[in-house]
Structures are given as structure tokens and as C-alpha cells.
């Protein structure tokens, strides 16, 4: 009997890292002979037609269906799939700890707590748990998953081989000193406020004409407002820009123009943007928390703390020490190759195949 591996996720969006991971995995599964459809509760307009409503899921006659659930937030879908009586694999992309959102977005914090509770409900029903990183795998083990493996999120770096927005690039390159960059949703766990503080210290101590661009849409409006207040309070209005969501070519322009990528996030299940920076030969300075150290490997300056003076000193060293910068860029290229779709796709497909068996049953 042919085997199907259908994927389920609460929200399916085009440029979302998990949405892209799901589409790439679907291509891999179909290429390997498995039937594979995508089901979601919330299907964004731009990907309508690429996914089916969760409520419409019915296993096709004559197929042996597996459910592959992508867990990244609380969802009513989780309990329903756990009780559906179908063989289940959970692909866990991390659920942020509620403590980061408690003071900013109590409802979001509630959803995160629910999501983490749901992992415990999913654990006894799941045959297997897949995690993007060993950091995420530890969450699965704590939740009670008996069998787990690490297989990184699927990123196709060929997607970045397109021209950046030339106007944005010219604007970013015009005048000014060293350009700091951070990319990621504006969310309290990503600690953009620490990046701003380190940048303020860097301007004061090393380069008064430095600039900072913080790229990413708003996950917490209140945190966003607090960042704006912090920027004004520190007198950085002319040097720091919160870009909000930008187009993909504009994002590429930011990577092209950046001198250094600074990530002081405290909670990441994987952290794709550090690899994106490496793809563009931008040296990375990062705080060594959660999954970030295992993602960057030896290709970044990984700091044990994020005091503004320490981070500023690290950036100054990276930008003034050519040999260090070159070694980080070279190691970054190797890191990007390590996480290339060619490698991670095979790893993911091997992992799924080892659980669900061959496509022809």
C-alpha cells in the first residue's frame, strides 16, 4: 500500500521560514515517491492553492497516511492530531519561552504556554520527534518523546542568488560609518534592545558615525514602541532604523551592505539569519545562547555575555582585524555549505524515511 506523508501546520505563509521548510520538504517527499499534501488552519492569501484547509483532511482510499505535524506555537490542531489515531511524527521548530512575552504580550505568552503543554500531549501519540537543533531536541525529550533526531530546517541558499534592490543598496552604502545589521522578528526574545545598547556603546567608544539597521516585522507592538523610545532616549534617532517588514530584494540589499551582523538573541530554535549573513560574507558576532552556538559553529565570534562594552569591543575587533574577518568569512562559507539544501534535504528525507518506511509500502 502506498505511503503518504501529509504535513500539518497552524499557519502557512510564503516567506515564513517554516512555510518554506514545509514546501521544500513536500518537494523532497514527492520526489521520493510519497504522496504529500499540506494542511493548515490559517492559509495566507499568497500561498492559497498550495495548501488545503485542515478541516478538509481525509486520508485517500488505498494509501497509508502519516501525519507530520510542524510545532512552533500553541494550536487546537495539536490535540486533534494527537487523538486522530493516525501514525504521527512531530517536526519541532521551537516554541519561545513565555517569560520573554509575559510583560509585553500576555496573550502570546499564554499561547506559548499552551504550545509547550501540547508537546506533552503529542509525545505519547507520536512515533518520532524531529528537531531543528539539539537545543530543540532537548525540549522534545523533556516533553516525553521517546525517539528523536536532529535534522535542520531546510534553507535553499540558491534563493539568495538574485539581484538585491539597487536603490536600497545605494542608499545603505551612501555615507556613514560601519553598518551593523540584525534581521529577525521584532520580539522580546530576540533582544533587539541589547543590540541597540551595544551599538550606542560602540558609537561612543569606537565609531561615532556607525549605523544600525534592525530588519523584521513586528511580533510585539509594545516592544516595538519601547525600542523606539530607547532609540530616542539614547540619542540614536539619526543612526538607527527599525525597517519593519521589507521586500526580499531589500533584505538582500541589507545583507550586501552590512559590515557586521550582531545577534544578541536569548532564544532561538535555530536562527536562519546568521546563516544568511554568512551567505553574504558578513562576519557575525553573536551571544552564545540557545541554539545559536550550534548553528554558527566556529564561524562567528560567540560571546559569553552581552554587556554593551564587550559587544562593542567584539565588533571593533572584527572590523579592524583583517585576518579575523577573513577567517570568519571563510568559516561562514563552509557553514553555509554544511547547511545547504543538498545536505539537509538528504538528512531530512533519510530521517523521515527511516520512520515511515519506503514510499511503496
Amino acid at each position, binding site marked *: 500500500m502506498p505511503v503518504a506523508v501529509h504535513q500539518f501546520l497552524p499557519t502557512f505563509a510564503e516567506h515564513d521560514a517554516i512555510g518554506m521548510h514545509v514546501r521544500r520538504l513536500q518537494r523532497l517527499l514527492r520526489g521520493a515517491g510519497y504522496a504529500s499534501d499540506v494542511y493548515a488552519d490559517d492559509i495566507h492569501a499568497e500561498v492559497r492553492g498550495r495548501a488545503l484547509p485542515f478541516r478538509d483532511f481525509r486520508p485517500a482510499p488505498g494509501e497509508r497516511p502519516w501525519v507530520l505535524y510542524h510545532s512552533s506555537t500553541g494550536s487546537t490542531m495539536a490535540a486533534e492530531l494527537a487523538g486522530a489515531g493516525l501514525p504521527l511524527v512531530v517536526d519541532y521548530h521551537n516554541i519561545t519561552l*513565555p*517569560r*520573554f512575552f*509575559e*510583560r*509585553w*504580550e*500576555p*496573550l502570546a505568552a*499564554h499561547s506559548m504556554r499552551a504550545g509547550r503543554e501540547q508537546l506533552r500531549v503529542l509525545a505519547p501519540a507520536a512515533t518520532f520527534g524531529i528537531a531543528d537543533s539539539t537545543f530543540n531536541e532537548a525540549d522534545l525529550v523533556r516533553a516525553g518523546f521517546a525517539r528523536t533526531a536532529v535534522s535542520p530546517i531546510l534553507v535553499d541558499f540558491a534563493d539568495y542568488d538574485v539581484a538585491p534592490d539597487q536603490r536600497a543598496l545605494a542608499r545603505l552604502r551612501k555615507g556613514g560609518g560601519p553598518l551593523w545589521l540584525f534581521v529577525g522578528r521584532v520580539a*522580546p*526574545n530576540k533582544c533587539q*534592545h*541589547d543590540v*541597540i*545598547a551595544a551599538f*550606542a*556603546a560602540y558609537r*561612543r*567608544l569606537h565609531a561615532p558615525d556607525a549605523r544600525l539597521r534592525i530588519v523584521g516585522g*513586528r511580533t510585539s*507592538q*509594545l*516592544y*516595538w*514602541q*519601547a*525600542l523606539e523610545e*530607547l532609540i530616542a*532616549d*539614547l540619542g540614536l534617532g539619526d543612526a538607527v532604523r527599525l525597517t*519593519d*517588514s*521589507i*521586500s526580499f530584494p531589500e533584505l538582500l540589499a541589507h545583507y550586501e551592505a552590512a559590515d557586521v551582523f550582531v545577534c544578541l538573541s*536569548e532564544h532561538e530554535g535555530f536562527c536562519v539569519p546568521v546563516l544568511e549573513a554568512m551567505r553574504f560574507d558578513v562576519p557575525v558576532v553573536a551571544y552564545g545562547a540557545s541554539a545559536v552556538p550550534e548553528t554558527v559553529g*566556529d564561524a562567528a*565570534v*560567540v*560571546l*559569553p555575555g552581552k*554587556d*554593551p*562594552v*564587550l559587544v*562593542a*569591543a*567584539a565588533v571593533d*575587533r572584527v572590523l579592524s582585524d583583517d585576518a*579575523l574577518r577573513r577567517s570568519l568569512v571563510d568559516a561562514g562559507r563552509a557553514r553555509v555549505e554544511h547547511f545547504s539544501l543538498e545536505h539537509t534535504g538528504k538528512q531530512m528525507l533519510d530521517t523521515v524515511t527511516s520512520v515511515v518506511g519506503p514510499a511503496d509500502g
Partner: protein
Amino acid sequence: MPVVDEIEEQARALEASPGFPAEEVDRIRRAASRLDPVDAVPGDVTGALAVLERRAAAGVVLPAISRRSPGGLARWAVVRLNLWAARYGAQQLAQVGSATVGLGVAVRERIEALEAEVDRLRAEVERLGAG
């Protein structure tokens, strides 16, 4: 990574050097630390009140930003604005409600802890009185 040790040493040396703007740097540290995450401690009424205070300041300006063309944006806005504004208002109301519940839970936990302490002290007084 040995370079990290060197960077830490450089940072320490810089901070110890004459002319280091200690006051300015401390001000930067203090300003940023106000945005640090806070751990929810059972019975933390002050923390719960701080959350409620922030949430209660409901914004009237919608967080609107778009890459759409002006014409497309106008058309889209006319169709969506009412629904969006209503949902935004409802979300803020729900956030305030959730923060109020958080405060209530903290107050209850605090009261329960105090009651347990009173019970313990009462038993201790009785024990001493009996002795």
C-alpha cells in the same frame, strides 16, 4: 575561541582606562535593562501590576505599514480598515483582560501564601502556649 578571551580582556582594559565614559555607559546599560524579560514569580503583585499598566495604555494609532502601491493601499484600506480596527481594539481589550487576570492570580497567590504563614504562626503560638 581564544579571540573571545582577547576581546574580553580588551573590553576590561578599555573600561579601566582613564577617560572611559563610565557614566554614559552606565546610562546605556540602565536604559536597555528596563526592557529585559522578567521572570513571573508566584505572588509577584508588583510585576503583574507593571504588565497591566503597560497593557492598559491602549494605542489608538494602528500599527499600519505597507509595501503596497498608494492606489492599491487605498483600495485595500477601505475594504479592511473597519474590520482591522475592530480586531485591533478587541485584541488590546483581550490583552488588558489577560493582564488583569495575571494580576488577580498574583494577588490570590500572595494572599494564599500569607494565609499559610498566618496558619503556621497561629499553630506555633498555640504550641508555645500549650508548653
